[in-house]
Structures are given as C-alpha cells and as structure tokens.
C-alpha cells in the first residue's frame, strides 16, 4: 500500500458523511472513529475533519502497557486487540491528537484503522470514499506530491505570495502510510 490519506480542511462542508460512513465499515461495530468539528460556529461555518495520523512511531502504541496496539506491515495503527487491552486508557491520554476513543461499556479502546479491511486491498476507506467535497482523499503518494505543487502554483497564478506567519496556508495538510 503506497497510499496517503490526504486532508484539505478548507473543503470540509460539515456534512459528517465521513462519520456516518465510518460506522458502515465492516470492522467498526457501527461506531465512528473520526471527528468533524466546527472551528468556531459563532464566527463561521468552517468545519474540519480529524482522523488518526497513523504515526510512524505512535504514542498510543508506545504508552500501551499491554502491547495491545499493533501496527500492520503497511504501517496502519490498529485498534487495541480485544484480548490484550486492559482498559487503562493510556492511549487516549498519550495521543497528541485526541484520536483514540474509549468504550466504557466494553472497557476497551477503539480507533481509526483506515478501514484496514478495505485499504489492504487498495480500496479507499469509507470516509474518503464518500466525502462529497474531497476534503478527505485516499490517493497515491505521487498524486499527493503533485497536489501540493499544484496548490502553490494556483496561489502564484492568483498573485498570492506566502509571507512569514502564513506559510502554512500554502501547503495542505497530509499524512498517511506508505512503504519506503
């Protein structure tokens, strides 16, 4: 799998289709693992999606005393293994992005696994499949690089120039897993 989950926050329309779709993934027990939030509804309707960053060296797995959080050979960080998870919630505190969720009834953690049952066959995860505005995409590493170059190019066409303090506006956010 040489694919990237590519996010463009600006495109998010707040429809929460990604969350509805997350529940539909076969391995997700009808519980969503992603987030859509308003930046500040009082000021604007801008929303943004948040997914697991699939870190190379994930804090959630590191802080797990039971070694319950496994990483696949492609680099996908999975939910805690049911038989190993002791319900200590370390992972939820450890994750710098606030991603892992905790099921208090079942006493176990669950999180985004990039719909591993789909993505292992190179089929897009449910959230990226349905996102109406392409705010979430499942694309090749090369396509991601191209999109990043394209974005800078469009800014130049419009005569915009990055300045100190707003450079981040010129590069869309991305993350993902890919084999070297």
């Amino acid at each position, binding site marked *: 799998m040489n694919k990237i989950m590519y996010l463009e926050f600006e495109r998010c329309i707040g429809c*929460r*289709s990604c969350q509805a779709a997350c529940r539909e993934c076969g391995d997700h027990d009808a519980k969503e693992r992603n987030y859509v939030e308003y930046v500040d509804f009082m000021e604007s309707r801008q929303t943004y999606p948040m997914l697991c960053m699939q870190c190379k060296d994930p804090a959630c797995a590191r802080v797990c005393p039971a070694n319950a959080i496994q990483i696949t050979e492609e680099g996908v960080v999975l939910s805690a293994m049911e038989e190993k998870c002791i319900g200590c919630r370390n992972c939820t505190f450890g994750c710098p992005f606030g991603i892992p969720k905790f099921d208090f009834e079942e006493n176990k953690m669950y999180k985004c696994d990039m719909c591993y049952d789909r993505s292992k*066959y190179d089929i*897009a995860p449910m959230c990226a499949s349905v996102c109406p505005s392409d705010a979430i995409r499942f694309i090749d590493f090369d396509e991601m690089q191209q999109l990043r170059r394209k974005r800078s190019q469009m800014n130049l066409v419009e005569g915009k120039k990055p300045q100190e303090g707003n450079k981040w506006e010129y590069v869309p956010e991305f993350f993902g897993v890919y084999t070297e």
Partner: protein
Amino acid sequence: MSQYIVKEGVKNLQKPGEKLITTHCCYCGMQCGMHIRVNEKTGKVVGVEPRYDWPVTRGKMCPKGVTAYQTVEHDERILTPLIKKNGEFVKATWKEALDLIEENFKRIQKESGRDALSVFGGVSMTNEKCYLVGKYARVGLGTRFIDYNGRFCMSSAAGGFLKTLGTDRGSTLPWPELEHTDCFFIAGSNTAECHPTSIQWLWRAKDKGAKLIVADPRETPTARVADVHLDLKPGTDSALANGMLHLLIKNGYVDYDYVNERCNNFEELKKTVEKFTPEYTSKITGVSVGKIVKAAHIYGLSQKSVVMFARGVEQQSKGVDNVSLYTSMALLKGQIGRFASGVATFTGQGNGQGGREHGQKADLLPGYRKLTDPEAVKYVSKVWGIDPSEMPKPGVSAYEMFDEIQKGKIRGMHVICSNPAVSAPNLEHIWNGFRKLDFLVVSDFFLSETAEFADVVLPATTWAEDEGTTTNLEGRVIRIRKVREPLGESKPDWEIVSLIAERMGKGKYFPYKNAEEVFEEFRLATKGGKADYYGITWDRIDKEDGVFWPCPSDDHPGTPTMFIDQFGTPDGKANLPCVEWKEAGETPTKEYPLFLTTGRVVFHYLSGAQTRRVKFLMEQCPEPFAEMHPSLASQYGLEDGDLVKLITPRSHMLVKTKLTKATRRDTVFVPYHWGKELAVNQLTNPCLDPISRMPEFKVCALKIEKYK
C-alpha cells in the same frame, strides 16, 4: 440483467456471503449512485458500498445517503393496512382496507360527484409510479383534483424555464461538464448542505481557478467558500438579478450575436433594467455596491459560466420571475446550449424532474403535455384507452386543494408519497383540512404526520423494494433496482393504485403485473411530448450510464445538452423577461420587524418522515433551531441555546436559538423537517406565485420574544 454493475478496473469490497445490488439513493435529485449490500442467505439489507464509477457522483454520498438503507427494514415500517377505529389505528387485511376505501370513495362520488375525490401525489418515487398516480386520478377515480408536493418544490423553476426557454429541463447541461466551467453564479442554494455531492464539481472547477458567486442571506457552507457572497435580504432576488443584468449590459458583457439571433424582447429588458443601477439595487437588496459590481465583473468576464439556483429563489411569490431573470443572465452572455455553460436548478426531490413531467400536476399529462391542449388529450386518451371526453379538466394547485376542502368541494383524498402535514405552508389550515375531510387514505411506509390524520393507511414499499426509473437533476433517466422483496404485506404504489382502480370498476385500465409493464406504457404515453422518453429502455440505461431526455427513438442518443440550436418555444427563441421590482408577499413591519426564512439542514430530507427515524441523523440534528446573529439575539437578551418564541401573523412556536455571525442581522432561519409543534411551517406564508402557485416559504415577517 446483471444486478451489480461495475466498470472494468473499479474495485468494490465484496464480503463473503453478501451480494451487491446497484441502485441510487432515495433522497434528493442528485440521485447518488450506490450499491446496497444484501445478505445472500437471508435476503436482508445489511449496508451500503460506494458506487465509484457512477459518473455524476463517483461514489460520494452525504450522511443521508450513507444511512438511507437503514429505513428499508426499520422497526417502525408499516407492514399491514391500518384502519382507524375510535381514533386508534388497528391492523387490517388488504381486503378489509380496500372494501372500506371502495365503499367510501363510491359513496362520496355518488353524493358529491366525481371531483369530490382528490389525489395528493409526490415525486420521491419512480417515474413509473408518478405516471400511474396521474392516470389513477384521472382514469381510476375520474377526478380533476390531482396535484403533488412538487408544487412546493420545483414548480417555480418549471414555470420560469417554460416561460423563458420553452422547455423545463432542470439542467441544460450534463454535470460532469461542470469541471470545465469558469464561473458559477449560485442563487438561493445552499448546495453544500442540500445537495452535498454536487460540491465535488464546484471544487474540481475551483481547483482550476473557477470563480464562485453565491447569493444567500446566510453565509452557508456554500457561501463560505465563494469569491463573492451577495448577502441579500430575503425576497429581493428579482432586484439583484435585474441589477446584475443592468451591469452586464452597461459593461458590454452581452453576446449580441447570440441575443439577436436567439432571444426575443432584448430592447424591453434593457429598458426595464435601466433603473437597476448598483446603488438602487443595493438599496433594495441590502448588498453593498462593491460586491454587486465585483460579482458582475467576475461573471461578465468569464467565458464559460453556469447560473444555478434552488428553492431560495423559487419558493417565493415571485419565484417564476426570479427564475426567468437569473436564466436571462445566462442568455445575455450566450451561455445556454454551449459546452460547460448554461443554467441549472438543483432538484429537491429524488425524482423531482421526472415526477413533474408525467401528469401528477393539476394541468399536465405525461410527456409534459398540457391538459388544455386538445391534441394532447386526444393522444393520451388513446394510449389510456379512454374517450377524450372522459378526460377530466385541469384541477387546482396543492395548497389550493385545501381551500377546496374548506369549501366542501373536496371530501375525500388519497395522499401518496407525501407529508403535507409538515411540508405545506400555514399548517393549521392544512390540519383543519385533513380534519374536515370525510375520508382520507394515505399510502406510506412510516406513520407520517399526514398518515396520523388518515382513516385508512396503506403500507407502501420503500424505494429498495421495487424496480423502476427516476430522472435525476440533470435530466438523466436512471435505473432504481429492487434490493429485496417487499417487507410484510407492503406493496409498491403502482400496485396499490391499480388495486383501488380495480375496486372503482376501472381494473381493465390497470392490468400491470410489474413495473416494467408500466414503463412500457409510460414510454408510449410520452412519445411526441416535450419530455419524450420513447427511446429510453431499462437496458439502455445500464449500458449508457443513464439516458438524457428528450430521446424520441431507439437510435436517438438522448440529449445531454439542451437548446444547442433552438429553444423549446414556438418560435425557437428564448423570451427575455421584463420584471419590475415588487415586494415579497409579506415584509417586515413595526410589529413584525424581522425576516423569517426556512430551509434544510444536511441531516434531514423534506418533512423528515424518513430521516427523523435514522439514529445517526437524529444524533446530529434532533430538533429545529432558530439561527440568528448574536447582535440580533442580544437585543432580546437571548443567549445561545435559549428558548425563543417565534411569532408570525399566522401562528407561533418555541425553539432554541443557535447563534452565529455567518448570517444577516435581520433574518432568522429555521429548518422545516419537523412536525406538529416543532413545524416552522405553522408560521410560513401561503402567499402564492401567480403562475407557479408556489407558496412563499422563504420570506415572511416575524417577531421574536424571549421565552420565560
């Protein structure tokens, strides 16, 4: 015929023990492509899989679409006929229900004449069903009173297009072309919430540098990403459009060759818009002069542009005028009939396009034929096998049927696929009408607010339990597939109306064994009409990714782009409108100082009868709210989440506030998807457009009070 259709090289996840059935969503006019997952052993619906290779939506779905399958086997489905006894519904057999309907329908017609019965249809169902509802009313019951919920949805767009272009097809171009468009002028449409999967096309174009202009009182998720947001006062669209036309002419953005050759009335239009200077327009609309001028330049300078609109401009007492004027913006620039350019309306209901073409409207026969045209009556009578003299005359519009009930002219009604007890304006009048009716039959699969008034409720199937076709918002005829057998004793609507027709002694006109037989007759009925479906077959739809009407013969390729050479008017030329400024039916006064406007949220569809029963959607948006600017709220001492009393000259209601600066300071917005005491349509104004008879849902005067 294959049930699972996929193009080469496209991968779907297919789980062992499951099959995929290719179909489309049941909700809005986007008709997003999807595969429904079915358990092979039990035949039960288990989920949804994106249809990546459907060219219009490419696997995208909104949250309603993702969860649509959950309504099919929902716990609250009505599975047997219900008869009301002493105010309570009790389960009944089909025979008992049909006996009771036959007895009452015959009694009412005997006592008060054929027209004492009426049919209230809907367009969230297939072409086959919509077509047959029209035939059911006119042949089965023999009444002239038939109209449908599209009257509250698409009628102004239809009226405006017919007046201006001569043919009413929602989009003059196929939507995959939108990616090549340079400029979108979108008026009165929050497409990001109401037709979410359309947004991908706007972004595709935007990625190439396209510009977006949005006219809306609220800074919606659509307006938020616009290059210019024209934040107009509700009900001032005709002034804004006139102002834009003024600037297009003044700045020389008119394609004179196109206008001279293909349009009538240009000089008259020029004269009318002369006074709509940016300053005058700004005074009426409340939009700053700078924004108006900027929008006109962006729109005027772009080579390929599409003007799009939706209920925001259409659900007004000037809906037809608004549509004509916005359409003229495209005409002056010579855009209609060209590549990646034109005009489009966002169809609200799944089959809002097809459903309005085939005879559910009070004055229309299949194929967009006029009931007042003797030739049309003759042709359709021949297809139906009746004498032309038996064809009922035109009836009245949806809302006006309730006036007829009050007058005692309509005594019985059959509501099919609609929930006017939530979606009609001035609801108390509607509720009183239902109470006054001698006999009410409702076909539905959930006990909707309308069904609660019924004497007999007939269990209809959902969209996933029958075959058929719909026509999406482009005018593309597409295929809906049967995913599972009908649940319980429910029956598809075409079968229900056939059964009643049989009881009324008209069985020989309704001999259908399946939906395809209805389709074959329906094709023939449309032959030679404006909306000609004769060349379309179910087979062709699969092979060609849908077929665009008009398609008059088997070897005709269909018509993706309309009006390439000429318009649908008698002389082939478009008619430019001349519209003077006129206020909305109700404007703010000293007593009612604010605007009330209504609309949708992304999580619900129409009256909410379906979406309010889906867990995910209710978690996201459980109740209506009054969205207002914090500066307005502070004048009344209201904070976010406080209960506020909304009062209009018709009624009042209590809702919680939701504060945001992304809206006008003089306008309160309330979504309309709830019934009874939560229905904002208790407050809305039934002032009708003189041509389309569309009620003014989008503008009325309001006062608010803090609830203590």
